[in-house]
């Protein structure tokens, strides 16, 4: 197998190992723990996250070992260009599946704004629901007064963008600036890898990670303001539901992307990347560009329009 890298017709098949099944065990422990926790929470019983944390610990440890091994295999020269091409396809189509995950939420937002809310307000083919159940409901977006206001008290304020001249004091605008800049800095880090300038790699990658963390900090700030000052919560009806799930899952992906980029940051300090062997970095940067593009879509349809 030592000659695998030279002989492009020999494909590297890793030996059997315990990582995959250990990861599966970790996942099921996490999920079952989380399920019990949520059920107890909703029933108002005492609950604990211990099992979830243990499961998540197993998942993290296994992932760490797994990636370490893959990196080591590459450094031993076992991974030839065909295998690397498989990694490229793998990451590319994984990102496509993530796009479709967000498509479900964007689609839900579109359906609610274009059909469900107008129908509730008495429009079109399904006007009877609105007429009979909630004749007073007025269809506007964002929905500030929900049809069943007893169960779903509407938000006091919403996050919709102000006039463009006031954007300098509008937090989501700055978040957009931060995230877009981070896409540029991660690209500069890539150029630095191509130019084999390690100190520049480290600087630009470090700045990218920092921008990611700042973005997340501002998102947390926004959520705190929403909950404490604007009365905008998950329970404020369809506006709060779509707002928090879209921005929340995006934030979750930014967190993941920041962790991945941080790993690449450590690896670049260790000198792992060369001009034509840096797929770990490239995969991370694709992922970062992807979360960036999702944010632009979010900024337009959740905040501006």
């Amino acid at each position, binding site marked *: 197998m030592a000659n695998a890298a030279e002989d492009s017709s020999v494909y590297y098949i890793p030996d059997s190992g315990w990582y995959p099944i250990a990861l599966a065990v970790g996942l099921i422990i996490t999920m079952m723990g989380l399920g019990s926790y949520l059920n107890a929470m909703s029933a108002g019983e005492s609950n604990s996250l211990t099992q979830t944390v243990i499961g998540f610990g197993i998942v993290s440890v296994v992932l760490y070992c797994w990636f370490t091994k893959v990196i080591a295999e590459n450094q031993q020269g076992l991974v030839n260009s065909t295998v690397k091409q498989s990694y490229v396809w*793998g990451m590319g*189509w994984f990102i496509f*599946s*993530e796009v479709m995950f967000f498509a479900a*939420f964007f*689609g839900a937002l579109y359906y609610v704004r274009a059909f*469900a809310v107008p129908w*509730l307000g008495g429009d079109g083919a399904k006007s009877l629901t609105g007429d009979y159940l909630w004749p007073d409901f007025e269809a506007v977006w964002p929905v500030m007064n929900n049809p*069943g206001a007893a169960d779903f008290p509407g938000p006091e304020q919403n996050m919709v963008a102000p006039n463009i001249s006031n954007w300098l004091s509008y937090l989501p605008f700055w978040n957009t600036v931060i995230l877009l800049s981070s896409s540029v800095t991660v690209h500069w880090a890539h150029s630095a890898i191509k130019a084999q300038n390690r100190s520049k790699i480290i600087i630009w990658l470090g700045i990218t990670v920092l921008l990611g963390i700042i973005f997340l900090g501002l998102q947390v700030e926004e959520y705190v303001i929403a909950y404490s000052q604007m009365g905008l919560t998950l329970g404020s009806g369809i506006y709060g539901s779509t707002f928090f799930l879209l921005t929340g899952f995006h934030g979750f992906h930014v967190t993941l992307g920041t962790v991945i980029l941080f790993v690449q940051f450590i690896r670049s300090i260790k000198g792992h990347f060369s001009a034509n062997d840096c797929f770990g970095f490239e995969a991370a940067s694709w992922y970062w560009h992807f979360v960036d593009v999702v944010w632009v879509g979010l900024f337009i349809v959740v905040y501006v329009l």
Partner: protein
Amino acid sequence: MSEAISAVDHDDHSHGPAKGITRWLFTTNHKDIGTLYLWFSFSMLLIGGVLALIVRAELFQPGLQFVSPDFFNQMTTNHGLIMVFGAIMPAFVGLANWLIPMQVGAPDMALPRMNNLSFWILPFAFGMLIATLFSEAGGLNFGWTFYAPLSTTYAPDSVTFFIFAVHLMGASSIMGSINIIATILNMRAPGMTLMKMPMFVWTWLITAYLLLAVMPVLAGLVTMMLFDIHFGTSFFNAAGGGDPLLFQHIFWFFGHPEVYIMILPAFGIVSHIIPAFARKRLFGYDSMVYAVASIAFLSFIVWAHHMFTVGMPLAGQLFFMYTTMLIAVPTGVKVFNWVSTMWRGSMTFETPMLFSIAFVVLFTIGGFSGLMLAITPADYQYHDTYFVVAHFHYVLVPGSLFSIMAAVYYWFPKWTGKMYSERLGKLHFWFSFVGVNVTFFPQHFSGLAGMPRRIPDYALQFADFNMVSSIGAFIFGFSQILFLFVLIHGIRNGKPAAARAWEGARGLEWTLPSPAPYHSFTHPPKVTDDEAHA
């Protein structure tokens, strides 16, 4: 043929399987993982089958005999979920694992460790799903389509575990699809251009894209449910400005491509078996490929034909009616091509061929009833009746399931190196064929006469049809025990099989010895014209 065999003969790479249980737990080998998938799927088939027989036993006569209505609902729900996600889908992934590396001339799947992960997630996820049947709060009882608000506001607590089980099996499917795409796009032997790929490989490539496009949507959907249930959001609650219909739209945006995920690989299988036993090349290979691609594309723009009666705007109803009927065109192309392949062939009728011919005939019946359901005004009459049950069981049982059985018989010699007993195989076929028709054909009539689906009791005029249907179900169910016996008998006592076990079989997998070596092709084989286009 012998050159190809010598190329794979022992070099430094051909270490055999590990000993003991760790072989199966830790394996990265596509054949081992394929075997695991297939046995897992078979055990799910038996469990899901038992649930179906409980349903049919209750429906044998009008009135409540054996189970309570709530338990009846749990049976139909879990039967559907287990059969769709546990039996049919994993069986096709198992076949993909076994066959695709051999058919494209690769040593293994592209990402072998992830392959192991995508399998081992499944037993745990289904363990959790099935365990909900025994939970204190009661099992899942909202139908396999889990429409909100049945699955949110009115759901038992176990729904939380159902949601996480769906997340896990979705992750498994996505990883499996990525693996299959990488294998097909990246590991074909030199000379195997896209339009020389075997049909099974083509159909799976397209299926993998369907999975990648819709499994994440399903994950998003159950995530919205989770938040509606536990965090007070109102996606599917009109009181908060949401809409229960939103659930159905997202569900069927996943659900309709999902239907084709369960039938496209079946098309591929039949496109191998019919040419082999008609001793002719597949008629119209190119049009077969384009037909599969068209069906896959159309599957994204027909979803609301499952929802004609919910009160959509007229324009929506018309759009979804016409696009749905359009699917009959590429599907018709496929059926005509299979028939033309048989035309003037020198046909023999071994078990895989019998299952394949039954597939073509019975799947076409299921297709025609689908066409009837596509007509919006007519669907107002058929909606949620046993006619729908008959329709989708005709495409799923003598469709998908028969193709899987055909594949198992056809490639059995390649997998095990042994021949199954042809006599027993045929016996299994005839019992299954009779059983399946006796079960589902009468349901067309009870449905057209107005019997609703998903009820434990029914009006007296449906009694005869239901009695016949239940008898058929028990025949079909127990004949699968025979299937198990045929397989075990073949593995233990079968006669040794030749490398090319069927004289008409084409494709790279038949150039390998039987049983195929542990790593299929360590060096890429030459793709001759004779073995291409299989």
